[in-house]
C-alpha cells in the first residue's frame, strides 16, 4: 500500500509538476457512535472522491490516544492536510504543534478544541444557537399571532447542544407574547425517552388539547413523541405542530406522512467546506477564517420530504 502510494506520488510529481496532482488528506474520525457520525464519515469519503483527493481514514473508537496516534502517523506519512473531529476539547497542544512543525495544515470538523487557534488552519462546524433560532423563527412565522402553548423536549441535561438549542429557540420567540413554553423536560436525545416524556406532557396538558406545538432538540425524540401523540388520539402535524433539529431520514418519512412539520438540518457534510478552504490554501496560501459556519437549512413538508428521505437513507444514518 505504502509503496504504491509513494510510487503514485513520485509518478504524479514526475509527470505533472504543478498540475492538479492527487493530494493526500488524513482524516481522524471519533468513531461511529451515532447515525449522524456515520453519515459524516460517508460524506467525507464521497467529497474526497469527487475532488480526486486520496483520503486516509482512521477510526478512533472514541479514544483520544487513538486520534493522537493517527495524527502522528499522518505526519510521518507526510500528508498534505489533516482533518480532525476531536473526541474531547483538551490535550491537543503537543500533537498539533508536531503537525505545525511539519507544515501540515489541520482542519477541525464539527467540534472545537481548547488549544490556541494558530495551531490549526480553521474549524468547520454548525452554530447550535443558530439552529435553535431557525426552529423558533419557523414557529413564529407559522403561528402568526395565534396563542401557542409550546412543549419542549430537551437534549441530555447539561450537554452543549441542549443548552444552545434551548437558548436559540428562546431568542427567536422573544417578544412574541402569544408563544409560551409551558413545559420543558429532557428526553435524553433518545426516541424512547422522547415518547415517555411526551406521554407525560399529554397527561399534564389536558390530554394534549392545550398543546399547540412541540419543539424537540433532535429528530429522534420528535419521532418518539409523534407516536405518543398518535396513541393519545391526536393528529401530529395538525393538532400539534412539530419542529425539531438534525434532519435525519426518519423525520423526512414522518414529514412525508404529514406527521411532522419542520426540521433544521445539522449537515453531516462538514468535509465539503473543509476541502474548499484547503484547496484555496494550497492554491495561493489564502488563510480561511478561523471558524467556518455550515448552513442550518430549514426543511418543511413543502421541500419534497420523500426525495430527501431517499437521498439520505443511504448515508449510514
Amino acid at each position, binding site marked *: 500500500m505504502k509503496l504504491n502510494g509513494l510510487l503514485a506520488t513520485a509518478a504524479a510529481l514526475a509527470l505533472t509538476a504543478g498540475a492538479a496532482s492527487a493530494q493526500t488528506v488524513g482524516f481522524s474520525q471519533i468513531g461511529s457512535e*451515532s447515525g449522524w457520525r*456515520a453519515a459524516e464519515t460517508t460524506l467525507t469519503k464521497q467529497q474526497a472522491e469527487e475532488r480526486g483527493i486520496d483520503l486516509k481514514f482512521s477510526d478512533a473508537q472514541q479514544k483520544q490516544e487513538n486520534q493522537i496516534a493517527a495524527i502522528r502517523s499522518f505526519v510521518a506519512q507526510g500528508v498534505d492536510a489533516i482533518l480532525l473531529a476531536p473526541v474531547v476539547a483538551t490535550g491537543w497542544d503537543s500533537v498539533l504543534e508536531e503537525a505545525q512543525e511539519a507544515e501540515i495544515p489541520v482542519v477541525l470538523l464539527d467540534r472545537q478544541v481548547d488549544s490556541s487557534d494558530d495551531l490549526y488552519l480553521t474549524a468547520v462546524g454548525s452554530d447550535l444557537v443558530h439552529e435553535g433560532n431557525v426552529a423558533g423563527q419557523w414557529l413564529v412565522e407559522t403561528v402568526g399571532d395565534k396563542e401557542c402553548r409550546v412543549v419542549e423536549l430537551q437534549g441530555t441535561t447539561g450537554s452543549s447542544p441542549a443548552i444552545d438549542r434551548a437558548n436559540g429557540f428562546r431568542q427567536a420567540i422573544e417578544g412574541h407574547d402569544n408563544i409560551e413554553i409551558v413545559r420543558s423536560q429532557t428526553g435524553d436525545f433518545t426516541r424512547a425517552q422522547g415518547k415517555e416524556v411526551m406521554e407525560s406532557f399529554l*397527561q*399534564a396538558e389536558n*390530554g394534549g388539547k392545550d398543546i399547540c406545538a412541540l419543539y424537540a432538540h433532535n429528530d429522534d425524540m420528535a419521532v418518539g413523541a409523534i407516536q405518543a401523540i398518535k396513541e393519545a388520539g391526536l393528529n401530529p402535524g395538525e393538532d400539534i405542530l412539530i419542529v425539531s433539529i438534525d434532519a435525519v431520514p426518519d423525520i423526512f418519512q414522518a414529514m412525508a406522512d404529514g406527521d411532522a412539520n419542520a426540521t433544521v438540518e445539522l449537515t453531516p457534510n462538514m468535509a465539503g467546506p473543509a476541502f474548499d478552504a484547503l484547496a484555496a490554501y494550497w492554491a495561493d496560501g489564502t488563510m480561511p477564517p478561523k471558524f467556518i459556519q455550515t448552513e442550518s437549512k430549514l426543511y418543511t413538508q413543502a421541500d419534497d420530504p420523500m426525495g430527501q428521505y431517499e437521498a439520505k437513507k443511504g448515508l449510514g444514518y
Partner: protein
Amino acid sequence: MMPQALRRVLPQILTLAAVVMLVTLVFPTFLSISVSDGRLVGPVIDILKRGAPIGLLAIGMTLVIASRGIDLSVGTVMAICGAVAATAIVNGWGLGPALLLALAAGLAAGLWNGFLVAVIGIQPIVATLILMTAGRGIAQLITEGRILTFSHPGLAFLGSGSLFGIPVPALLWLAAAIAVTLLMRRTALGLLIEAIGVNRRASALAGVNARVLLIAVYMASGLCAAVAGLIATADIRGADANNAGLWLELDAILAVVIGGNSLMGGRFSIAASVLGALIIQTIDTGILLAGFPSEYNLVLKAALVIIILILQSPRLAADWQLWRRSRSGLSGSHAAATPKPKESLR
C-alpha cells in the same frame, strides 16, 4: 399462608401508597382514569405500561440475586433482542420467527452468563459485566449502528396495543410475574434456588443440582430481558441499539433491593420486587408529571430512593422496636429477643 405472604410485601405496598400520595399532591389528577377509544387512559395506566421493562427485568433479577448472583447484562440483552426482532421484521421473515429469534437470543445470552458462572466459576458480577459491555457492540453490529425503524403492526402491538382496555406491556409483566411466582412456589424450585443462594456447597452436597439450576436461573433472566427488549423496541417501532435498556439493569437491581430481597441471596419474593419496580416507575413518571426542571430529575429520584431504603432498613426497624419497648417500660430481655432479619446473613 395468605396473611404471611401479605405481611412480606406490606412495606412495599405502604411505600407505593406513600409515593402515590406524594405524586398526587404535586399532580392532583394523578389517579384519574378515563376511557378513550375503548382503552383506559391515565397516569396510573401509563405507569403500568412504562413499568413493564423494569418489572420484567426485576422478575429475572430476583431469581438471579436469590441464587447469590447478579446479572448486569440485562439492559444490553434487551438491546440485542430488540435488534434481532427488528432485523427479522425488516427482512420480512414475519412476526413468529422474529419473536422466536429474539427470545432465543435472550436464552442464549443467559446460557452464556450461566455457563461462565456455574461451569467456569467466574464471579457473577464479572461474568455478566463481559456481556454488559460487549453486548451493546453486538446489538450495534446487528442494526449496523442505525436506529432500525419498522412499521409492522403485529410487533408494534406488543408495545402500544391494548387488550380489554389494558396496555399489552402491562399484561405481559403481570402474566410473567404470576407465572414465575406459581412456578417457584407451587414446585420446590424456589426453595432449591434459595438453598443455592444460602450455601451452594451445602445444597450441592444435599443433592441439589446447583450447576444446572444456576444456568437455568440466568437463562430465565435472559428470557425476561428478551421480553423487555421486545416491548421497548415495539414501543418506539425501532431498534435503538445505543439506548435501548441503557442503565436499566441498575434500576432492576434497585427494584429488587426496594423489594426487600437481600443481595446476599436466599429468601426472595417476586411480588415484592415487582412492587419495587412499580415504586421506581411511579417516582420516574411522577417527576415528569410534576414539571420540575430536568436538572432535578435524578436528584429527586435519588433522594426518594434513599428515604425508602432508610425506612426499610432492618437495623433501623430493630432499633425502632427497641426504642419503643424501652419507652413502654418493658424489660430489656424482650427487646433482645426481637428477631433481626438478615442480621445473620451479614
